[in-house]
């Protein structure tokens, strides 16, 4: 069985300053298997794999490839060993074609025979069952096609150990199935595949074995056939957790927000959201689903008064039942007419918070104008910061510690805590649990439900369809900047939503 082991990592340790990314981690990968590396965000999955791919260099530990100890100093060393990693952010040149990207950086003869290259690549595609047009340019491609290019690029370089970092984060359910089929074909041809993930259902449906990391440390490896969703969660979290999300029924829903034919243009004048039309009610959670970049960000920003290039109207019903039009108002003007809109943007540190400031100063972002005179008051923000730290269990040395140096989950708690503190009438959150561990995620779901019960109108953009279907009352689906449907989350299925996410009739009209 010795020769069956492709990669062995022994006692791998990596620190970043006082932050422990990996502590004494062991990992083995066998020939012709799919190994899942499972762990919550921040458990050190990606940094461990980056050490295999030559991005980081371990502080301590040994790596063996096919029984021989190796030192991997750079991605080139990793390539030479047949290790290829597909990162979450693709590393492709937009203006080149798929084939050109695949051979980019490879040595070759003086004269480039593109036809021969394409023939070789096509063989690879057929062998594993990829679907890809080699002459298409990267910028014309969907995320899933770009991912295919990345995988083929690694295979063409002779990689037989493939590492995929959260490959399904940006895919629809249908695309995910297709990817898994290809990965299974590759396994059948003797390749070893490591996928980094925190989604349990994928682990169970795809992999042969699962290695679990928790807080940088190695917890253990189990055969997938012996594992259940419950047992894996326990390994990941270290304790039993309840995986049910509460969904109270809406009480006296009243129309709160009416988005009427809103179109948003980007800087180049292209439509990124076209003719969006929907209503949101008090006491409900309206989910927004869609592939990343389908206009979710623009939709929320246009309601929050942060989109300068838009047409259409946004109506808001205040407590007395009067309808106000928010269109053309800036974030500040909306606040001045007494409308409490809270917004947790996708880009937490680039928009919602100031990374270099502490919690107190970040609380001030919403309240520093309060009070007369030249000087900003720090007392109330400081108290609020202490309160949020206590209430939500934010882990930080002090409320003056820069939020940019906190972990993602704590950053999100700070941001959500501040936004909820204003007791909003409309609460908009984008990807509220991205980067959070399971317990923090459930804490956030509970906070959203609490706002819903208070009668707020909650709008939640999410990426995990299972969660959206369990948490929301209705789900609005965006496809390529259009509202392709609104479904009842209590009755809809994942497949239905997935199909709406990819309905592309508009695209064909344009083409």
């Amino acid at each position, binding site marked *: 069985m010795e020769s069956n082991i492709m990669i*062995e990592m*022994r006692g791998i340790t990596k*620190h*970043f*300053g*006082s*932050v422990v990314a990996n502590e004494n981690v062991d990992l083995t990968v066998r020939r012709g298997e799919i190994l899942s590396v499972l762990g919550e965000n921040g458990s050190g999955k990606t940094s461990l794999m980056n050490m295999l791919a030559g991005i980081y*260099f371990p*502080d301590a530990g*040994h790596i*063996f*490839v096919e*029984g*021989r*100890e*190796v*030192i*991997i*100093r750079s991605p080139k*060393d990793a390539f*030479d*060993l*047949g290790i290829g990693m597909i990162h979450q952010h693709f590393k492709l040149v937009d203006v080149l074609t798929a084939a050109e990207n695949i051979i980019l950086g490879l040595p070759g003869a003086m004269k480039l025979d593109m036809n021969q290259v394409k023939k070789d690549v096509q063989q690879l595609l057929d062998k594993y069952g990829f679907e890809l047009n080699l002459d298409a340019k990267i910028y014309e491609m969907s995320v899933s096609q770009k991912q295919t290019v990345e995988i083929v690029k690694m295979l063409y370089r002779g990689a037989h150990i493939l590492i995929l970092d959260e490959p399904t984060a940006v895919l629809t359910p249908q695309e995910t199935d297709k990817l898994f089929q290809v990965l299974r074909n590759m396994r059948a041809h003797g390749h070893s595949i490591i996928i980094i993930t925190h989604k349990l259902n994928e682990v169970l449906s795809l992999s042969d074995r699962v290695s679990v990391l928790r807080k940088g440390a190695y917890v253990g490896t189990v055969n997938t056939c012996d594992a259940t969703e419950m047992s894996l969660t326990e390994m990941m979290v270290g304790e039993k957790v309840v995986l049910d999300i509460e969904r109270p029924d809406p009480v006296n829903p009243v129309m709160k927000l009416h988005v009427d034919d809103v179109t948003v243009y980007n800087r180049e004048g292209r439509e990124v959201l076209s003719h969006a039309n929907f209503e949101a009610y008090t006491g409900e959670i309206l989910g927004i689903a869609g592939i990343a970049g389908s206009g979710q960000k623009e939709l929320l920003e246009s309601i*929050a008064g*942060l989109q300068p290039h838009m047409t259409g109207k946004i109506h808001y019903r205040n407590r007395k039942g009067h309808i106000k039009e928010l269109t053309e108002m*800036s*974030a*500040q003007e909306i*606040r001045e007419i007494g409308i409490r809109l809270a*917004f947790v*943007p996708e*880009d937490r540190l*680039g*928009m*919602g*918070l*100031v*990374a*270099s*400031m502490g919690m107190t*100063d970040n609380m*001030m*972002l*919403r309240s*520093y*104008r309060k009070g007369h005179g*030249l*000087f*900003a008051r720090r007392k109330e923000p400081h108290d609020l910061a202490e309160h949020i730290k206590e209430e939500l269990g934010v882990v930080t040395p002090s409320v003056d510690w820069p939020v940019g140096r906190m972990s993602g989950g704590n950053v999100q708690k700070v941001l959500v805590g501040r936004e909820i503190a204003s007791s909003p009438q409309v609460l908009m959150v984008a990807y509220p649990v991205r980067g959070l561990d399971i317990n923090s995620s459930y804490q956030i779901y509970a906070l959203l439900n609490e706002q819903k019960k208070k009668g707020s109108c909650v709008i939640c953009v999410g990426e995990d369809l299972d969660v959206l279907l369990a948490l929301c009352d209705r789900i609005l689906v965006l496809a390529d900047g259009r509202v392709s449907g609104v479904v009842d989350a209590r009755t809809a299925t994942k497949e239905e939503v997935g199909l709406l996410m990819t309905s592309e009739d508009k695209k064909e009209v344009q083409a």
Partner: protein
Amino acid sequence: MSAAVKEPLFHVVKRDGTSFGRSLLIRLAAIVLALIVCAVIIVLLTGMNPLSVYAALWNGAVGTSRRMWITFRDAAILLCIGFAVMPAFRMRFWNTGAEGQVLMGAAATAAMMIYGKALPSWLLYALCPLAGIAAGIIWGVIPAFFKAYWNTNETLFTLMLNYIATQLVAFCIIFWENPPGSNSVGLINSKGKIGWLPNLDRYGCVLPILIVLALAVLLYAYMRYTKQGYEVSVVGESENTAHYAGINVKRVIIRTMALCGAVAGIAGYLLASGVSHTISTGLVGGRGFTAIIVAWLGKLNPFSMMIVALGLVFMQKGSVEIAGQFNLNENASEIITGILLFFILGCEFFINYRLEFRKHEKEAVKA
């Protein structure tokens, strides 16, 4: 398969926060190292005793009470110009136009002194700084306005305004030259010292120093405790966050550059009315750019900037002495300053990172 098997000699590891004492120690070590390297270079190039060169340097900067006061005063002026770029840098607005803003402030002050001779002296005392401040504000707000409304590049814009300021002053000198034909202005109102900043002491150094110290306290409080200072920090960190918080970014850019211009105007006023009592195109003499070094080496903190400004002026004054005493030209001290700066800036790396060397004995591991 050509696997690399050699471990690299060292790799770089990030430190997680360095204690104040440790970073101070690293900085001191850097300065000592710099002085040793300088000494070696002095011996190699000139064969002179480096200790006597250092002694001359010290002597030139603070050897007599007059020299010491002048060194302090010039450091204060440089610091003041540093204050004129600091708020902009906090906002990530790359203001390279302090040179021109100070010069315009000085020119406006000079104009006041020349044309306002007949005014009652209290009125002139009030008008001179106001004119300087107003001119500085105008020169600071022009690029800010273009940046805010048309997103022009502020670095180029402020840089080019420096040249326009120089040309404007050259033009004014044609009218103000005294004696005629000299192509220079000479001491303005040398009889009666009308409009001159009053002397509190023998060398006329105390008042400018006090003014700049007061500015330091005011600016520190402004940046740290006021609503406007808070807005500047937010805009500097991320314009998106500023929009999100409902901050009017255009207004903050213009307002902050007006503040910068005003401080530059005060520096110009101090130069024209308190130090040189004249105006020339070279009055600022590159201090508008040295001030950028002051601001950044001082990490944009008014009090750290004091130390940097003093250090730079100290080296500059000392160098003149070296040049005279040892028959070297001023470039010798430029070399010393350069080496010092290299080490001081370079030691930041060691404050933030440490090197991990290859372990020599590796325990044998078998696969």
